[in-house]
């Protein structure tokens, strides 16, 4: 592999990894506070992309449409929690998981019924799709913007978690929901904030995804969601930093393995899990994770 191709794949991997990372953060945060594998999270990403698409189709400027997409997804995320998860706080964990699957089915099929299952073409403004050509490397501007924005968002999320009152409450919640209630913190409100942040990030991931691969459909969240979840576990579920690391590792692996061994192209979707299984077998709590029973960010 010569240098040009290497660099090319490096930026591609960073861009793909960023999207996994953004979605993985939501998985990891929800897991942190609720111990729930939120299977509907991948579909929230799809919801964000669709809202943006329709806002833009309605004639709004792209930037406004993006904002609507993010807020819309956050609202859907909060509603999901209020309707399907909150009543089950004290129920067995597996019931919660089933309702998560139910929500996932619901969103996928509702969007199919409402908007059809034909992929829709997602068009981003010129300044996001421009392509630079430097020394044989083709750089769509998005591959620069996406990782940059992702890292900025990570900084903001970490700031919220470590420097704000709410962040402290979120981290406390991750340790023990009972103690938090005793401390007089409204746990449900904190959980709501977690869903809002997680869903907003998923929506950003979804919009980035739609910019990079400009076709959106109601089932787009399934595989990406699963992979992002794998990334979250890979990094150590419950750890935001871990989710980002996991996301990037997955992104780079997918890109590089296929580039170096094209005959393995058919196995691409399995990498996430294969890799994950190996890591888990040697370090069962993931790369940056702590003991499962003591989640942390």
């Amino acid at each position, binding site marked *: 592999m010569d240098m040009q191709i290497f660099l090319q794949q490096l930026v591609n991997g960073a861009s793909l990894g960023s999207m996994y990372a953004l979605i993985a953060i939501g998985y990891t945060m929800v897991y942190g506070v609720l111990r729930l594998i939120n299977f509907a999270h991948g579909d929230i990403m799809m919801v964000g992309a669709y809202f943006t698409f329709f806002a833009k189709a309605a004639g709004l400027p792209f930037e406004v449409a993006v904002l609507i997409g993010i807020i819309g997804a956050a609202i859907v995320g909060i509603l999901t929690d209020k309707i399907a998860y909150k009543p089950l706080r004290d129920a067995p964990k597996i019931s919660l998981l089933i309702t998560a699957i139910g929500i996932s089915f619901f969103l996928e099929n509702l969007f199919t019924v409402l908007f059809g299952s*034909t992929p829709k*073409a997602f068009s981003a403004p010129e300044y996001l799709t421009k392509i630079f050509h430097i020394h044989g490397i083709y750089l769509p501007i998005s591959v620069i913007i996406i990782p940059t924005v992702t890292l900025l968002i990570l900084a903001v999320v970490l700031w919220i978690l470590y420097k704000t009152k709410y962040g402290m409450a979120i981290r406390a919640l991750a340790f023990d929901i009972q103690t938090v209630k005793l401390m007089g913190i409204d746990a449900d409100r904190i959980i709501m904030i977690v869903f809002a942040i997680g869903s907003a990030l998923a929506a950003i991931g979804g919009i980035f995804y739609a910019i990079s*691969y400009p*076709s959106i459909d109601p089932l787009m969240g399934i595989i990406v969601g699963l992979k992002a979840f794998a990334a979250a576990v890979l990094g150590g579920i419950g750890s935001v930093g871990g989710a980002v690391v996991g996301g990037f590792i997955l992104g780079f692996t997918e890109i590089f393995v296929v580039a170096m061994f094209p005959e393995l192209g058919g196995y691409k979707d399995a990498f996430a899990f294969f890799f994950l299984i190996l890591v888990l077998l040697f370090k069962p709590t993931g790369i940056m994770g702590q003991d499962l029973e003591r989640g942390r960010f």
Partner: protein
Amino acid sequence: MKKFTSIVATMALLGGMAYAKEVKIGVVLPLTGNIAAFGQTSKAGLDIAAAQNNKLSNGDTVKLVVVDDRGDKVEAATAVKRLLDKDKVSVILGEVASSNSMAMAPVAEKAKTPMLTHASTNPRVTKGKKYVTRACFIDPFQGAVMAKYALNQGLKTAVVVTDAKQDYSVGLSKAFKKAYTAGGGKILKTILINSGDKDFNAQVAALKQANPAIVAFTGYYPEAALMLKQARDMGVKTPFIGADGTGFPQLVKIAGKAAEGFMYTDHFNEAAVSSPEAKAYVAAYHKKYKKPADSMGALAADGYGMIIQAMNNCIKAGKASDDKECINKNLRNTKGYKGITGVITIDKDGNAVKSAVINEVKDGKFTYKTTVNP
């Protein structure tokens, strides 16, 4: 009640032609799920055809019973059983995806009910089956058309992109390679993708390295669009040729400018229609849907038309319009049916022998280039 029935029966006998009954066609399509786009476009065309003509020559009405199988094989097979037992249909029309049709075929075969698939191109769908027929050409033909066209353009080296998840793509790739090599071309590389993938940067890099004269893309349109876009973004200027799975308007919408110059083989292009029947269909389609008629819809309409013709032939021969054996015999013996997608003749294996068209994307539109006859 019994008495009433017998009176009706007697009246029907006496009335003969005057008493019109209802003949049911069971339609199995993927209206939801991964490949719903194919099912929905098929249904759009089918609706046009059914609106144009739902009466048989003896006055019997034809009713469509449409079932969604979610693109799932198990559901497809169950759907056929349901249509046969519950709805008592006389003919089955569908599916699009070859794998689903292959799940349906044995059920129809066992029930000795004719099944006509309008768009499944894999040869095995009809193989060894007495009651399964198709209204479209098969992959070996389509692959050969792609290869010949590329070679005629002087494009002697190719990279084949195969969708490892689609039997359609695997079969088509094989057919293309065979014809291309036989015609003196050289296959440089086969690149595998999976339908559902959105990132093809790695494959595009491999493609760039191989630097072929043409890329034969044998998958479906969602991947074609994204791959084209990513290839052009990375400065790959090699022409792409695809097949009937790529000819959807979404290709252009998604790929945008990158789709320019993309060629593909298809069953039909509305610009190439000449027969009055086809023109009437296209006009009705435009009126109802306000967009160009596509090939899935046209094929479904042809399938419907062939079934109607077979039923009418049965009536002519003095048989009942819902006589399954007779319908099957007539379907199998279709010769020179003037359809929307061209003149259709069914060979001894139940496959349609018909022409293919080659289209090219120009200014964001599918423009007709040429017709290739078998």
